[in-house]
């Protein structure tokens, strides 16, 4: 008899895990709370992905198509795991969706519930939601995806754009001390996109460090060397309204050692990633551990990533911390292998 494995979350990590398991002949139940598959990249209509500016549809669309066409994957949309109980080495779960409740027994479980974007309105100094022209990176992804890169205030293309890094990350005040890892790379990618499609628009990136780790550094170099993106070392402490319908960024240029108050047509906040409400929800429901950053905790971060502290429950993707799609997909595969081995041993 085939194994039964539950995958919670239909983003890149969950999709890839489900596909791999299905190809091994496992009966997969894929539970997604949204009305669609694809996770955050789909929800916010990411258009081109770093590192190689590949159309998102080639990656996310492809994963969705593979999952949808595989008969071994039973999809539950607008769904959630309502209750969850261990029974010996197995797990009983009630899955609630539009089509009612279903109780099933699983040999193992993969949690891939992902992340939430930090809500910049929580950090009032950036005046997000106060001024129409202050947006964040997910808003910009969506605008690019909808091919509508104009100032929300007047529908006209911006003359200049400020991108502010580390919003909601690396900051004791907002409660997130970690680095969100992808926002630097997303930001230089977006700077390139802006400059490529709207060469009249000047782009300035305000940074404290630029963490385009590994080969993502290529994008950073490209942004500067091929697209003349300007980088300014310093932070912005206040955003106020300026003349001619602009917004003023008040900050310090730490290299020039002096304050600036510069008007921009548009400001993009590089808001980071958070564990979201789903991480504690999963921790409570499944009896697994949460880490001090609000994400789900690996049993051993070096030796056994993908394993939770509970036998038979595995973790994949951004639910364990900020990461790029490629990493989320790799973890989806690794978690699938772990879950498969566990199921095989105990069935």
């Amino acid at each position, binding site marked *: 008899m085939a194994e039964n494995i539950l995958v919670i979350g239909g983003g890149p990590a969950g999709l890839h895990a489900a596909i791999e398991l299905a190809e091994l002949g496992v009966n997969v139940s894929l539970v997604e709370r949204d009305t669609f598959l694809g996770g955050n990249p789909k929800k916010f209509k990411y258009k081109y992905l770093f590192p190689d500016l590949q159309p998102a549809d080639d990656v996310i669309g492809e994963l969705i198509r593979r999952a949808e066409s595989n008969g071994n994957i039973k999809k539950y949309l607008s769904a959630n795991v309502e209750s969850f109980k261990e029974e010996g080495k197995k797990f009983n779960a009630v899955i609630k969706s539009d089509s009612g409740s279903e109780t099933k027994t699983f040999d193992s479980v993969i949690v891939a519930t992902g992340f939430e974007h930090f809500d910049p309105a929580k950090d009032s*100094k950036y005046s997000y939601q106060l001024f129409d022209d202050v947006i964040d990176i997910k808003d910009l992804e969506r605008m690019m995806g909808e091919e509508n890169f104009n100032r929300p205030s007047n529908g006209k293309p911006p003359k200049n754009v400020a991108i502010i890094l*580390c919003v909601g990350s*690396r*900051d*004791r*005040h907002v409660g997130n001390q970690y680095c969100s890892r992808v926002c630097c790379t997303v930001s230089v990618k977006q700077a390139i996109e802006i400059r490529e499609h709207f060469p009249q628009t000047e782009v300035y990136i305000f940074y*404290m460090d630029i963490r385009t780790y590994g080969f993502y550094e290529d994008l950073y170099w490209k942004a500067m060397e091929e697209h003349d993106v300007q980088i300014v*070392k*310093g*932070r*912005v*402490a*206040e955003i106020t309204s300026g003349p001619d319908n602009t917004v003023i960024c*008040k*900050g*310090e*240029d*730490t290299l020039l*050692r*002096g*304050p600036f*108050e510069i008007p921009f047509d548009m400001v993009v906040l590089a808001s980071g990633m958070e564990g979201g409400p789903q991480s504690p929800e999963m921790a409570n429901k499944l009896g697994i551990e949460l880490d001090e950053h609000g994400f789900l905790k690996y049993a051993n971060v070096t030796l056994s990533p993908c394993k939770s502290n509970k036998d038979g429950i595995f973790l994949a993707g951004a639910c364990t911390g900020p990461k790029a799609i490629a990493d989320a997909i790799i973890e989806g595969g690794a978690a699938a292998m772990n879950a498969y081995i566990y199921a095989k041993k105990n069935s």
Partner: protein
Amino acid sequence: MAEEHNKNSVRPVAEKGEHIIARHLIDDDAIKEEKNLVIDGVDVSGRWNTFIETRVDSEYDRSFFDEIQKTVVGSRINRCWQCGMCTASCTVTPLYRRFNPRSFIYMMQLGNLKQLKKYVDVAWRCVGCYKCSQRCPKQVNPAEMMEALALLIKKYFPEEIKSKHQLIIDEEVKKIYEGMILGHGRLDLANLHTSAMRKMGKTSELLSDKDERGAIFKMMKDGRALSVLRLGKPHKWHKSKDAIDKYLQNTGTLEQESQV
């Protein structure tokens, strides 16, 4: 004796370092000129006796960092990563560009007294609005670091303070300070500054300096002055007040034994 030297020297020394091209780039302190100088038996007085000290920093003075870290107000100096959020939010920096909390903290971290000395005239200008501490992502509490800085300047550069400002830390000022702490539970530096000037009979001086006057008017106009004055009392202040009252009865003063 000095007069004799002057007479005997090849040429009287006029302005310090007057032969240096681009003289404005070099600090007074870095120029060494002896009126009469003999090196290895060769008299190099006059034109050849101007020396410019190297401007390469050649050591970090760690003891200084430790000293600041031991104080209550400076205890978080090890946290600062120089992001500039404090300076970016500072009420005073836009008015006095040389007042830069981030860079002062850096100088304190590295024990660069030589640099700090250049800012003695502005380093005490913090108005205690705490905007920086509200925003600092590392919770360094830069507003209090500025107090650590003030203590430090008082200790290391007493002469500069006297000559530049004739600051008199007298009993009157102490009384204003205590009244403020006991009455409001907070130190309002802008208020302390003006009250102290008033007590010393220097109110007019406050308004005679062009920068200062401009600063005051600008702050009144854009509402910052109000926000500074409107600081509320801390939560459950009466409890702390009782404790301070008791402490005062025993010691007679709020002023700490100078640790810096």
